[in-house]
């Protein structure tokens, strides 16, 4: 036999009990005037608690101004992120003609002897081939 239990009455009114538990509470409510009153009380209370938002006073927020602020916040979020120092330095060096000119000149200076050596070796090769050819005749 169930004794008066406030938590169980709350759960019963809240629909939070298993069917078998609900049957036990219902049997108790049928015989207990005090718990029956309690259940009626909670039913009214829960309804009010489900509608507490109506207690809030009217808001004086201006939707247009807030919409503008939200749009500005969105635009701020779309701005490119700050670039790292290494990336900036690389960009500056590669885009600066002073440095790119020097690099080209250095490249040319290094390339000239190599090209000259290549030409000399090619000439020597042709001469050797010519001698071989001349010998077979």
């Amino acid at each position, binding site marked *: 036999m169930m004794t008066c239990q*406030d*938590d169980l009455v*709350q759960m019963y009114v809240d629909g939070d009990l298993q069917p078998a538990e609900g049957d036990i509470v219902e049997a108790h409510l049928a015989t207990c005037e*005090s718990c029956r*009153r*309690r259940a*009626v*009380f*909670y*039913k*009214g*209370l*829960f309804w*009010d*608690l*489900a*509608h*507490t*938002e*109506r*207690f*809030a*006073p009217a*808001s*004086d*927020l201006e*939707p*247009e101004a*807030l*919409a503008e*602020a*939200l*749009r500005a*916040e*969105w*635009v701020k*979020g*779309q701005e490119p992120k700050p670039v790292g120092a290494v990336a900036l330095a690389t960009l500056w060096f590669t885009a600066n003609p002073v440095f790119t000119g020097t690099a080209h000149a250095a490249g040319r200076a290094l390339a000239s002897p190599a090209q000259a050596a290549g030409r000399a070796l090619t000439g020597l090769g042709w001469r050797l081939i010519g001698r071989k050819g001349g010998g077979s005749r």
Partner: protein
Amino acid sequence: MDDRALIELCQCGHPAGFSRLLAAYQDRVYRTAYTFLRNREDARDLTQEVFLRTVRAVNSLDPDRPLWPWLRRVTTNLSLTLLKKRTPHLSLDALPESAQPQDCSAEPAWTQLEIREALGELPPLWRIVLTLRHQEELPYEEIARVTDLPVGTVKTYIFRGRRLLRERLALREGSHR
């Protein structure tokens, strides 16, 4: 306009998206914040912050999922942060003792003002979990997730909160006689 269209418009930065987002949810966020905070200025400031955070996170929002659970979560989290900052005793260790339930009158009869005042006398966390339970109809586990409280604590706050409200309202009703 459904949530999907709202989210997609906001993700594109379309001005109509922000206007319609506010038209759909500003009042609900404000009223929920007011229920938690019981202060008009705080509720207004918090409402603005909720929407600013929503816009900052808009690209991570899934258009296929309803928007309100996200807004409710941000509203609850920001409210709890504000309350904890202002009310150092809003910890689990310093719960006020609930009075023992008393027998109350035959029929529930209280005014809106009385229940509003009785709610205002509850500890803020109790009020928040009660609101999430009854207004938002969330299961205990979801309330625990949103408030970052153990499920057992959530249940304790809910049962004690209701009992305390019942007692307060019964006392008020008794004083009218």
